[in-house]
């Protein structure tokens, strides 16, 4: 797999939950400037796949490679190049947006010059910097977490349902942000139940096999 354009490559990965198999022999490569949309029904393993890509979970089988080496390989800088935002808020409700983002920046060792205030301003949180995050609305909390996208210089973004509880304006802003990121050579892995318009972007889709539908009483 010496393909220089493929930054992230997934080889034969399998994922199990308990004694149940979610997917097997999944293969794909993601190169600079590409987007990967992960689709599938509830319970098909979208989140599990994203967590494997983020290095939070281990695949039951197979490998995830970053620039040709395993993501935990000591010579690899995967965790400096990757930003993951999951289902959970990822922010502390007891802290203000400003405090939350300072912490995130310190943790990820981001060299990005963008100011935190500027990022909050762009996401429409101007004037809310010092308020306890718990008092913000669901959409605003989500925006605090998403502000990390403006502060990071990670090349690959892995976003699990980023549009949840966002309004139209925020979604449009995010879509523009994704386009800019990809055009600058970044990569994006995304799941979303809402339709995503990413015109003019190098765009791949993966549909996970549907598991048996659970009976709804």
């Amino acid at each position, binding site marked *: 797999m010496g393909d220089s354009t493929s930054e992230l490559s997934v080889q034969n990965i399998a994922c*199990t*939950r*308990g*004694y149940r*198999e979610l997917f097997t022999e999944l293969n794909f490569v993601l190169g600079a400037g590409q987007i990967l949309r992960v689709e599938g029904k509830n319970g098909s393993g979208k989140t599990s796949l994203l967590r494997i890509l983020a290095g939070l979970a*281990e695949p*039951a089988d197979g490998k995830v490679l970053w620039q040709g080496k395993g993501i935990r390989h000591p010579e690899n800088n995967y965790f400096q190049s990757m930003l993951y935002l999951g289902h959970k808020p990822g922010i502390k409700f007891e802290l203000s947006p400003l405090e939350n983002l300072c912490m995130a920046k310190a943790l990820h060792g981001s060299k990005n010059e963008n100011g935190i205030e500027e990022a909050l301003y762009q996401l429409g949180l101007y004037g809310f910097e010092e308020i306890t995050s718990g008092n913000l609305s669901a959409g605003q909390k989500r925006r605090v977490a998403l502000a990390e996208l403006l502060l990071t210089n990670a090349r690959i973004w892995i976003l699990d349902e980023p549009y949840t509880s966002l309004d139209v304006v925020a979604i449009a802003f995010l879509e523009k942000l994704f386009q800019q990121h990809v055009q600058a050579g970044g990569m994006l892995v995304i799941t979303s139940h809402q339709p995503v318009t990413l015109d003019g972007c190098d765009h791949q889709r993966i549909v996970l096999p549907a598991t048996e539908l659970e009976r709804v009483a």
Partner: protein
Amino acid sequence: MKLPAIVHKFSSPRNFYVMSGKLIPWFAWPCLILLVAGLYYGLIEAPADYQQGESYRIIFIHVPSAWMSMMIYMVMAIAGAIGLIWRIKMADIVASASAPIGAAFTFLALVTGSLWGKPMWGAWWVWDARLTSELILLFLYLGFIALQASIEDPRNAARAGAVLALVGVVNIPIIHYSVEWWSTLHQGATITKLDKPSIHISMLIPLLLMAVAFKLYYAASVLMRARSELLKREQNARWVREIVANES
């Protein structure tokens, strides 16, 4: 560090299943023979102790059980470490299959120790260093079993158990030393038992026979438990379906 390919080949679920199926009788039958021989020599042939009379004969169960309780914990930790580092599924399965057997031996050591204590000390329980260490070891086993039981995903359960077993292995010498030290401070009720360096040959032989029999029993039962767990975990694999189809 990489393991040679042959290790992976032999530890592949299918090979393990087939090989262990062939091995079990080779452990089980000698175990039975040695067990009968050991009990015969221990309970009938060996002379009565001049101080303790007949009651000392429980050491033929008690001492090998206590040895097993320590050994199995070590096996568990080593297997756990192998599973954690090299991701060998069989090592994980061996570790979790060992735990209930180890706990049972620990329990046996405690019960026989207590039964032995009654005629010797006139009490069912004495806070003697060995018994206390054994009791703590039982709790280490129970913690391991409870942790694995409460984690649904078998792979995560194995890995969590491995971490706990390794932490336990680092702690066992410290706990053991502390308890020894504590018990020498509070001497009085305790009588050190079996500290006679020269045990008579007629007692040593049954003791060793029993010890080997117990080890064989462990080997056979851990393989049996591992095999059934393996079938459950690999239920989606083709080789399991083939085996099930052949056997039914």
